């Protein structure tokens, strides 16, 4: 079978029609990963035993002629910030180098319950902090479309594996753009659902009010199929919403004509690459031809999204990462004489530069005398950014923008300048702050062959419209 072109639908059909056993398919994927991944480095850990056990379950079902679950035999990869029982989970950090979780992340458990086969854990920026995957303690991921370029981040391994055909689909996480931006850089589909749509139970916390789990896939249809499986209330996450989950795949059949689509001028200003602009404008033209009404809108606070994000995300991260103390799990420094020294040395040795930088920034923003000036101020601006969306959605059904201001950049290009790296998320962070869903779909290539992504943002819990518009663009 040609692994590069396999979608969820075609995998499911091949398994159901017994053109291939799940076990043989898994073996074929591991063969490809072992041959090709040394040049990409999308995987951090392979879980061959777990995968072959699950493949056998699916093969037993097909042999018996029993009904197959919706993802029967679909090989998937999981970003290494989601815990997997018995399978090492590092969060891309040295501090968790030997961590074997005692439980499964809800989204992973739901995928497996639906018949998916977890092949392994995907490389990512340490604790999902980064936009290029260069902050992984285990080394960078390379972009399969051009190996001198970054795959984006922080879900760089998840995006690269799908682009290189080393998994049919993957799960990523998005706190400031970490699903959509790498999807855009690697030429795949990346969906960030509404905050609360997918349980965060078992997602190693970066910034709890901004963290989202979502799929990276080859097609919008696959994203729709996966979302339905992982979405919905989970009693183990009190912020997961008890709101009905529609059949997103069926929703794709509805036409997009008549939908009102907003194009915010703030997303097409200074700093936007000319080729990206042209490709996104061509995508918008396509929607116009499909019968959508294109409306110019303004989201006046957009320029304040990055500074707001870097206060709130780092403040939450500084609290969330306080748990890494070398006591219950994770790295412990040797030779410390007191408890306080042990904490400091363990964290010093275990965390990388960007993680320390963010812990420092967040701790500073929350410290006495600065809390009001930074943290509270950012929370107030977050309200303004959320109002921008609420006002826009009174006029339009969805918003279309570029996913990122540029195509994939070179490895090392921005590694020494944190601020220029942060700006890679300039068009994606707003949706995380406002909690609205967003998707990145490929909408063309640069002359040098690098993919370009178009972003669709929608109303809270209206992934259906976001997916439909994405489907019309692809």
């Amino acid at each position, binding site marked *: 079978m040609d692994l590069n072109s396999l979608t969820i639908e075609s995998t499911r059909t091949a398994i159901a029609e017994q053109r291939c056993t799940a076990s043989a398919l898994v073996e074929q994927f591991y063969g490809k990963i072992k041959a090709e991944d040394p040049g990409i480095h999308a995987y951090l850990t392979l879980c061959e035993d777990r995968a072959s056990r699950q493949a056998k379950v699916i093969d037993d079902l097909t042999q018996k002629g029993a009904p197959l679950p919706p993802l029967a035999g679909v090989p998937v990869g999981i970003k290494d910030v989601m815990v997997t029982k018995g399978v090492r989970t590092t969060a891309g950090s040295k501090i968790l180098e030997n961590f074997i979780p005692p439980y499964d992340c809800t989204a992973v458990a739901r995928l497996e319950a639906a018949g998916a086969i977890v092949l392994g854990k995907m490389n990512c920026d340490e604790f999902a902090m980064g936009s290029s995957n260069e902050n992984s303690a285990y080394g960078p991921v390379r972009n399969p479309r051009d190996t001198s370029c970054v795959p984006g981040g922080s879900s760089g391994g998840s995006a690269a594996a799908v682009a290189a055909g080393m998994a049919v689909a993957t799960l990523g996480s998005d706190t400031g753009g970490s699903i959509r931006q790498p999807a855009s850089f690697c030429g795949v589909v990346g969906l960030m659902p509404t905050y609360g749509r997918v349980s965060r139970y078992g997602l190693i916390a970066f910034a709890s009010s901004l963290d989202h789990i979502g799929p990276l896939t080859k097609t919008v249809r696959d994203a729709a199929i996966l979302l339905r499986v992982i979405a919905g209330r989970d009693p183990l996450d009190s912020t997961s919403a008890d709101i009905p989950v529609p059949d997103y795949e069926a929703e794709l059949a509805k036409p997009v004509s008549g939908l009102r689509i907003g194009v915010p001028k703030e997303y097409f200003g200074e700093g936007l690459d000319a080729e990206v602009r042209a490709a996104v404008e061509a995508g918008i033209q396509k929607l116009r031809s499909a019968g959508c009404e294109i409306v110019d809108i303004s989201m006046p*606070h957009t320029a304040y999204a990055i500074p707001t994000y870097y206060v709130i995300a780092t403040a939450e991260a500084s609290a969330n990462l306080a748990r890494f103390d070398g006591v219950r799990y994770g790295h412990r420094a040797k030779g410390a004489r007191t408890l306080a020294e*042990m904490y400091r040395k363990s964290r010093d040795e275990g965390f990388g530069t960007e993680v320390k930088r963010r812990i420092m920034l967040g701790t500073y923003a929350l410290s006495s005398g600065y809390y009001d000036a930074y943290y509270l101020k950012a929370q107030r601006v977050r309200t303004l950014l959320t109002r921008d969306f609420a006002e826009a959605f009174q006029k339009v059904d969805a918003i279309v923008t570029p996913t990122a201001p540029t195509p994939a950049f070179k490895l090392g290009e921005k590694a020494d300048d944190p601020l220029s790296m942060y700006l890679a998320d300039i068009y994606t962070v707003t949706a995380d702050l406002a909690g609205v869903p967003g998707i990145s779909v490929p909408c063309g290539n640069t002359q040098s062959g690098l993919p370009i992504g178009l972003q669709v943002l929608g109303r809270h819990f209206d992934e259906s419209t976001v997916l439909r518009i994405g489907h019309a663009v692809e």
Partner: protein
Amino acid sequence: MKVTDKDVTYVADLANLELTDQERQRMLKDLNSVLDYIDRLNELDTSDVPPMAQISDKFGESRTAYPWREDTPRPSLPHAEALKNAPESDGDFFKVPKVIEK
């Protein structure tokens, strides 16, 4: 410069980080450049704008969308499982260097 050397030491201490001299110098430079950028937020008058901690605040009025679970006991992680990832334990407890100095 907003952040001084002394601030870096103070904040590192709050965050339980030690940092090498080289890391401190780098941190001083990076924190100042990022905080300068963050200062843009002061261009906005937010005196009448309420702060927002979490998006579900918006839906939080409806306890049907975010129900509380029943307050009933359920099994927790077994003792042995909880100790499995510990860098050091005595089988009953996590072991740490001594807390009280003489």
